[in-house]
């Protein structure tokens, strides 16, 4: 029997075709010599925040973001070696939200490396995640680079176990970014001890990539753009010559350099967060290095969202694929002291949407 084209299959094909036409296939092939190790690329999809309204009804906006990222990652040519999922797949850590998200992510044609976010963790304290996705923290090696995945969104035991009457209430409290009753993110002693042990077998020249959900430095505590024991984690990474820390949570173009550590934030597929220096009532530590992304236009649902892909290991080239905006490329080549935007880093090159906050 000939397969009838249903409305769904038509839309799926049309969507794929549109993505193929719209997706910028050319990527900067940066010739970075000197460093040993094979050049490779991985992609990331992060902060999808799949939200159940009720039953089988989910917030369409956030579904659309994740679907679009999956289609575009699958169009990469050559394919990335793997895709990092940067955390916050579910909005309230519900089984239905995970399943709905996994249903969309199952179409990704390369392996996924999972990083847990606070929205995934605080309902069942990582039970579903560990059963279906990955351990909460682990490491792996790939083409000469040592990858470490941390669960950086832990917090005080009292806040986790004693403060709230139900796990649903605890999840709601952690879900609110500007929560005055919130609690700071932490990596904590058990993981720090594990990290020390894990890195003991690694040579100082081996490139290291740390994948975490929250930024492993201190930007703005009220929004948990923050890890309380960041300095202690950074100290463990200090002896290594080439360390990059990639994180989600902030839903924006953000990058920084602190000593030997290069930081890069993942974009979110769901929605953009404002920059911390747009909240006028409290001081903050917005990295001066970051050239902001264009101020999002709320009338364009996908503005301020996107995904990315990263070239390694000689330096780092981070391609931010921004829907509704030209792509941004942030690069730190060997010999450079810090990452820079390849087009807008110099103050004279900034454009109004980057300044008009």
């Amino acid at each position, binding site marked *: 029997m000939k397969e009838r084209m249903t409305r769904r299959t038509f839309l799926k094909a049309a969507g794929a075709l549109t993505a193929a036409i719209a997706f910028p296939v050319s990527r900067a092939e940066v010739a970075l010599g000197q460093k040993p190790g094979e050049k490779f690329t991985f992609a990331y999809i992060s902060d999808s925040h799949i*939200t159940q*309204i009720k039953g089988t009804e989910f*917030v*369409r*906006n956030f579904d659309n973001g994740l679907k679009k990222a999956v289609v575009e990652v699958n169009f990469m040519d050559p394919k990335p070696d793997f895709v990092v999922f940067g955390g916050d797949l579910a909005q309230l850590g519900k089984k239905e939200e995970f399943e709905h998200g996994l249903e969309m992510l199952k179409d990704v044609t390369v392996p996924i490396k999972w990083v847990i976010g606070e929205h995934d963790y605080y309902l069942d304290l990582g039970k579903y995640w560990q059963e279906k996705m990955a351990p909460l923290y682990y490491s792996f090696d790939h083409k000469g680079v040592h990858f470490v995945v941390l669960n950086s969104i832990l917090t005080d035991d009292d806040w986790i176990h004693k403060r709230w009457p139900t796990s649903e209430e605890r999840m709601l409290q952690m879900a*609110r*970014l*500007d929560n005055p009753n919130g609690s700071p993110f932490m990596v904590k002693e058990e993981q720090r001890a594990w990290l020390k042990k894990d890195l003991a077998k690694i040579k100082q020249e081996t490139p290291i990539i740390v994948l975490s959900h929250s930024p492993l430095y201190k930007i703005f505590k*009220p*929004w948990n753009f923050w890890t309380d024991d960041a300095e202690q984690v950074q100290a463990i990474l200090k002896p290594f010559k080439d360390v990059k820390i990639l994180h989600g949570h902030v839903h924006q173009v953000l990058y920084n350099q602190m000593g030997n550590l290069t930081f890069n934030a993942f974009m979110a597929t769901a*929605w*953009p*967060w*404002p920059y911390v220096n*747009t*909240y*006028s*009532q409290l001081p903050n530590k917005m990295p001066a290095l970051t050239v902001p992304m264009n*101020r999002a*236009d*709320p*009338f364009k*649902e996908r503005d301020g969202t996107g995904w990315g892909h990263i070239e390694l290991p000689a330096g780092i080239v981070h391609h931010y694929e921004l829907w509704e905006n030209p792509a941004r490329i942030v690069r730190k080549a060997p010999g450079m002291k810090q990452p820079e935007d390849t087009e807008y880093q110099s103050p004279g090159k900034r454009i109004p949407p980057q300044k*008009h*906050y």
Partner: protein
Amino acid sequence: MRKYLNLCLVISLLTCGIGLFIAYADPFTEADLKKWNEAYMAAVKEGDSLFHSSKLGKNSVSCDMCHPNGSNAHPETYPKFQKQLGKVVGLRDMINWCIQNPLEGTPLAADDPKMIALEAYITYERRGVKLDPGKH
């Protein structure tokens, strides 16, 4: 004569009294200011609650999900030409656009106490920032 003088005294006292009453129509006190400020802060608190509520719209999305602490709302720039709406609008028009679109909800009347409360909260979180009406 005495009666006449008494009458003059009474009339002049009355006139002064009325004069005082007319000239000092709103002699508010510190206690009044405190009371009125409490009423205002109650509206800010109500607005804070609505701003963070998953029930303002119909899809559980809340304002703080894009605007933590009311950031990136730019209340000081309204009224302005809102390019996407093609006309000059006030803050509450943009609030209603958000309620209807990302929150998939029902817009509020301009004089709805909930709308006033939302404006109170958003502007409160932006206190001290100078007015810049018309800025894109």
